[in-house]
């Protein structure tokens, strides 16, 4: 069997050749560039930590960080709230709602569409003068004058958050629902016998048991959210208008590298983004873990 085991290398060789060339090497090359003033033509100089000190005081980057967090945060709160509420309704034993498949498909639909098409579509639907949204809202009588959604920082950020919610709540709902279906009915029956009401069942049985799934959704959504790029880029002018409110970290990275040719600095932005992602993921993990210990203590 020993001789055959050498075949193992053969089987994993193509993977590693490509992985080293197109994934590992670029990551280290970017790290190298982040310490240089590379602008796309050979002859870059090593500048030490200059790019990183610049990053820490760069108001555009700091602003981009807060924009990204704000847009993601509002979207995540809404998306999870909706996903949990829907899962709660569909798993309720007394309501016995039907049509889960039908609704689930509809709720998931927006997630399948190319984001650049979504951005373009909402760009014109939200248009101040000719946008269908203003026309419909005025026809119903909800507003009397057209609102210029994408011209004010607050409404622009809120619009992007809501579009993201629209795109992602169905996805989260499917995952939460799968988690809820996996919980043994014994727990609910036991809680029922103990006289728990719906709210108590939800907070004391469902939520704690869903924790691993919620952690999964939160981490994946956070990592995706910190990389927000297509939607803010395409819904306005591509550099974060209005007032830099749609300037996200990856959009900033993209513009620094491929618009202004500041490859060296953009590489530092990439590593800054990576560090931020790591820190946030660690906080989420730790928060979840601490809660667990606290409940264990209470139980003991």
């Amino acid at each position, binding site marked *: 069997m020993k001789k055959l085991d050498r075949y*193992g290398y053969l089987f994993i060789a193509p*993977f590693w050749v490509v992985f080293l060339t197109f994934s590992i090497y670029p990551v280290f090359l970017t790290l190298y*560039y982040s310490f240089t003033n590379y602008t796309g033509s050979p002859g870059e100089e090593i500048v030490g930590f200059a790019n990183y000190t610049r990053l820490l005081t760069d108001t555009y980057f700091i602003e981009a960080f807060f924009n990204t967090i704000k847009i993601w945060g509002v979207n995540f709160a809404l998306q999870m709230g909706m996903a949990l509420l829907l899962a709660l309704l569909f798993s309720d034993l007394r309501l016995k709602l039907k049509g889960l498949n039908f609704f689930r498909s509809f709720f*998931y639909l927006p997630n399948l569409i190319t984001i650049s098409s979504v951005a373009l579509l909402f760009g014109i639907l939200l248009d101040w003068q000719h946008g269908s949204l203003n026309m419909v809202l005025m026809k119903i009588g909800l507003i009397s004058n057209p609102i210029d959604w994408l011209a004010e920082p607050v409404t622009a950020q809120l619009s992007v958050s809501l579009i993201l919610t629209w795109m992602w709540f169905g996805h989260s709902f499917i995952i939460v629902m799968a988690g809820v279906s996996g919980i043994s009915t014994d727990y609910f029956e036991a809680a029922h016998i103990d006289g728990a009401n719906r709210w108590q069942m939800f907070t004391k049985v469902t939520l704690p048991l869903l924790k691993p799934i919620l952690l999964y959704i939160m981490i994946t959504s956070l990592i995706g959210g910190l990389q927000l790029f297509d939607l803010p880029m395409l819904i306005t002018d591509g550099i974060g208008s209005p007032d830099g409110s749609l300037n996200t970290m990856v959009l900033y990275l993209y513009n620094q590298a491929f618009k202004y040719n500041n490859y060296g600095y953009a590489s530092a932005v990439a590593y800054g983004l990576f560090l931020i992602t790591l820190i946030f993921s660690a906080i989420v993990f730790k928060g979840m873990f601490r809660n667990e210990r606290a409940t264990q203590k209470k139980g003991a």
Partner: protein
Amino acid sequence: MEQNAETRRMLPDSEAQPKRKNDRPLKVAPPKKEKSKHRVIRGLIYASLTILAIICFIPFLMMIINATRTNGEVISGFTLIPGNALLDNYATLSEYINIWTGFKNSLIISVSVTVLSGYFSALTAYGFTFYNFKGKNAMFIFMLVMMMVPAQLGLIGFYEISKTLGILDSFIPLIVPAIATPFTVFFIRQYTQATLHISLIEAARIDGASELRIFHTIALPMMMPAIATMSIFTFIGSWNNYLMPLVLLFSPEKYTLPVLMGFLKGSQVAENLGALYLGIAISVVPIMIAFLFLSKYIVSSISAGAVKE
């Protein structure tokens, strides 16, 4: 047969379980008064759910209807009645861009990526599962760690190496990296460990089959459910990818559909809203039709990816 049973075990059957809940033996019949109250609440819930479903769908409906109307009609207001400017809009659109070229490019890239990723991930997963070679565990852990690193981190280095290799403005840097997709390898390995027993492979060895032949004729067909699950996401991810082709492609005739959509925004087509809506509709409708047929499968795949580990 056995394969199907395994798939079902792996993809949590969210259909069956709620039903089991409904049949719970402990069910206490609610008093009559509460029954009518429940009916009202249920009606309200159904109404809200329907409204939510409409909200999910209405932007697409607006898009399809506006695609059939002239610029003047689109500007003057929104109705649910389609216009008859579809062909004119198409003519306007075709003057500026060839949307079918974008379609073809996206299809070539996404299909190649899906096939390469599925085949080579299965190959790698097989190597990791059925052979014991030096450094195996270290390599696997290294792969898992690198899985956490976001794609943007290496973006600039990736652009540079493509430049060095002379493959900028071609499909190669968009397709070839699909050979190494760690998450798919990981997923297929987990599946293979649970479903494919080594005795099956040893039996084939005794029969004199070569290692590669065993992989192709015995292992690969049995890994198919896991490969198919991952393929859906690989395909959608590749089809919707915007950043990579935007950075790597320069010639408009090589643009993928998402890049073409971004390009459309700055072009003169944007002055004719009907034509612009039509362009978006053409990029969206095929995916919607595919979803109609695949929705059940997609939904269970999403659950599988999350609940598995």
